[in-house]
C-alpha cells in the first residue's frame, strides 16, 4: 500500500520535532555532533514512525525489527527519535552526555533499552547487523535488520569485510542505509578519501542498490518497502542528504560535523544566539512544513 499524503505530513512533522530536540539537547550538552543528526532526521522519523516494526513500551520484544546505528556519533538523532516515539520522556534528552545519563555520548546497549548495539568506533555496524540477520534467519524469524551507516566510515576496512559476508550469505533480511552527506571531520569525503563510484561498489559486492533523496519521506519509505521485496540479496539504500538539514548556517558545512550549536562556526549568527536562531529556522523549515508552532 502506497504511503498517503497524510502519513507523509505526519512524518515530516515528526522530523521537525526530532530536529528541534536535537538542537535543544546539544545546547544543553555543550558538546556533540550537529550536522549528521540534523541530516538524518527525516530518515529516523520515517523509520521510527512508519518503517520499523517495534514497540516502544517493550523495547526487548522478540518480534521487533533490529535497528543498528553504525555511526554512533549521530546518537542525538536516535535519542531524539526514540524519545518522540515514546521510548522515554523527551525531557530526558536534555541529559545527553551528562554524568549518570542513559544517553551516553555514543550509544550503549547496556545503558538504554532499545539500543541494539554499542557504537562509536566506526565501520563495525554492518557486520553486527549481518550477524543479527544471519542469526535471525537461522531461527526462521521474519524480523528485518536495518543498519544506518555514514559515508565517511566506509573508509574502514571492516565495512568491506561485512559487505563480502552479507553478499555471500544473501542476507535479504538486511537493509542498510548510507547517509551520503559527503562530509567527514577533516573535509569532504571525495577530498579525504574518495568513495565514488559508491553505488557501483555496493553492486559489485552483490547488494541491491537504491539511491534516494534522504529528505524525501516518500522516497525513503518506498525504498524501504522495495528492499523487503528483494530476494537473495541485501539492500543498500544510498540516501543523499544535506548535513545540517533544516538550519541554513549549518547545511553542507563540514566544520559543523563535530560542533554543537553555541560553539560552531558561523559568519552570520554569533555563538550565543545560535540556539535560538537555529530553533526558529527549524520550526519554519522555509515554510515547507505545516506545523502548529511554525
Amino acid at each position: 500500500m502506497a504511503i498517503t499524503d497524510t502519513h507523509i505530513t505526519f512524518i515530516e512533522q515528526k522530523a521537525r520535532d526530532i530536529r528541534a530536540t536535537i538542537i535543544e539537547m546539544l545546547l544543553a550538552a555543550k558538546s556533540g555532533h550537529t550536522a549528521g543528526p540534523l541530516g538524518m532526521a527525516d530518515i529516523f522519523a520515517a523509520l521510527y514512525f512508519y518503517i520499523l516494526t517495534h514497540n516502544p513500551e517493550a523495547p526487548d520484544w522478540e518480534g521487533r525489527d533490529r535497528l543498528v546505528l553504525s555511526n554512533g556519533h549521530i546518537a542525538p538523532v536516535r535519542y531524539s527519535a526514540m524519545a518522540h516515539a515514546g521510548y522515554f520522556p523527551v525531557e530526558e534528552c536534555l541529559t545527553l552526555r551528562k554524568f549518570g545519563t542513559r544517553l551516553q555520548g555514543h550509544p550503549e546497549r547496556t545503558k538504554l533499552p532499545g539500543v541494539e548495539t554499542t557504537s562509536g568506533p566506526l565501520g563495525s555496524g554492518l557486520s553486527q547487523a549481518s550477524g543479527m540477520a544471519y542469526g535471525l534467519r537461522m531461527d526462521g524469524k521474519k524480523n528485518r535488520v536495518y543498519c544506518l551507516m555514514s559515508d565517511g566510515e566506509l573508509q574502514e576496512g571492516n565495512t568491506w569485510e561485512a559487505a563480502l559476508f552479507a553478499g555471500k550469505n544473501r542476507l535479504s533480511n538486511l537493509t542498510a542505509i548510507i547517509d551520503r552527506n559527503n562530509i567527514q571531520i577533516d573535509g569532504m569525503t571525495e577530498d579525504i578519501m574518495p568513495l565514488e563510484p559508491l553505488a557501483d561498489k555496493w553492486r559489485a559486492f552483490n547488494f541491491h542498490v537504491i539511491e534516494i533523496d534522504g529528505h524525501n519521506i516518500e522516497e525513503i519509505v518506498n525504498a524501504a518497502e522495495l528492499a523487503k521485496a528483494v530476494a537473495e540479496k541485501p539492500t543498500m539504500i544510498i540516501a543523499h542528504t544535506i548535513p545540517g538539514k533544516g538550519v541554513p548556517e549549518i547545511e553542507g558545512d563540514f566544520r559543523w560535523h563535530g560542533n554543537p550549536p553555541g560553539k560552531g562556526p558561523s559568519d552570520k549568527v554569533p555563538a550565543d544566539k545560535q540556539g535560538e536562531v537555529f530553533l526558529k529556522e527549524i520550526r519554519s523549515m522555509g515554510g515547507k512544513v505545516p506545523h502548529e508552532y511554525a
Partner: protein
Amino acid sequence: MLNSNAKLVPNLFEAKLESKSTRDGFGTGSVAAGKENQNVVVLSADLKESTRAEWFEKEFPERFIELGVAEQNMATVAAGLAAVGKIPYITSYAAFSPGRNWEQIRTTIALNDVPVIVCGMHAGVSVGPDGATHQMLEDIALMRAMPNMIVINPMDAEEARKATIAAAALGKPAYLRFGRANVPVITTLETPFSIGKALSLYAHEKPEIAIFTTGALAYEALKAAKNLEEKGIPVSVTHVATVKPLDTASLLQAAKQAGKVMTLEEHQIAGGFGSAVAEVLSEHYPVPVKRLGLTDEFGQSGEPDELLAHYGLSAPGIEEAARAFHAL
C-alpha cells in the same frame, strides 16, 4: 608431593603420558557444548583445520560459519549473532584474534556484554617454526585489561575441553587461550575445574617457594618441583587457569605459606599473568616475586621444545630460576 585432590593422571612422573594440544581440547569441547545447547555456533576465519573448528563443522555444519580471512568481521558478526541469542565461539590464531580485532572485541563484545567466546589458538612461543609473527605473547595483557572479559588459559587438552564447555554456560564475554603444540595430558575427567578457581597441583608442609603457573607449562612446573624438592628446596605448584578474575584467596594462602612467589607463563612478563599476581600480592601480602616468561622480546622460529628451553620455560630452566630465586 603431588596433590591427590587434583586427581591427576596416576604415576604422573613414571607413566607414559598421552600427548595432545590444548586446541584439541577446544575441538572436543566445542562439539560437546554444541550438543548441549542448540544456540552454540562456531565461527572460523580460514583456519578451521588448525584451530580444530572443523571438528564442530563436521557435527553441526549448519551452525558453522566461515568468514574467510577477516578477523575484525568475525568478532563483529559474532557480536550480532550473540545479540539475537546465539553463543558464538570465534576461532583464529591469537595473533590475529584478539591481536588484530581487539577494538572490535572491546566495543562490540565486552562493552556490549554479549556472550561471545574469543578462542585464541597458537598462543605462546610453542607455536614453533612459524616464528615471531604467529607466536602471540601479549594477548593476556590485552584481554585482562578489558572490563567484562573473563580470561582462561588451560593447562592441557582435558582442562581445555572442560573450559570450552564451561565458557558456553557463562553468558558473558570470555577469552580462551590455546596452544598449538602437543603437551602431556596430566589431568583426568575427575580433576576439578571451575572458572575462577585455582588448582593446587603440588604441595608441601613448608614450601619455600610457591610456583603459580598458567597455560600448558604445568607439567614442566611439576617436573621442576619434584627435582627441587629432592634437592632440598620444597615448593608448591598452583595452576591458575582463570587469569581473570584471579582466585585471590587461594593465591594469597599459597603465598603466605611459602613467603616467595614465582610465576610462569608463555607470555610477556609485562602485563601478563605474573603482573596480575604481582598486583594482588603487592596490595594484599607483599612478598618477593620472580616472574618467568618472555622479557620484552619477540619469539623466533624453532621447535617448541627448543624454544621453551631457550626462554627458560621448560623444567630445567624453571628449576634453575627457582634455585637462584631461593638463594636471594
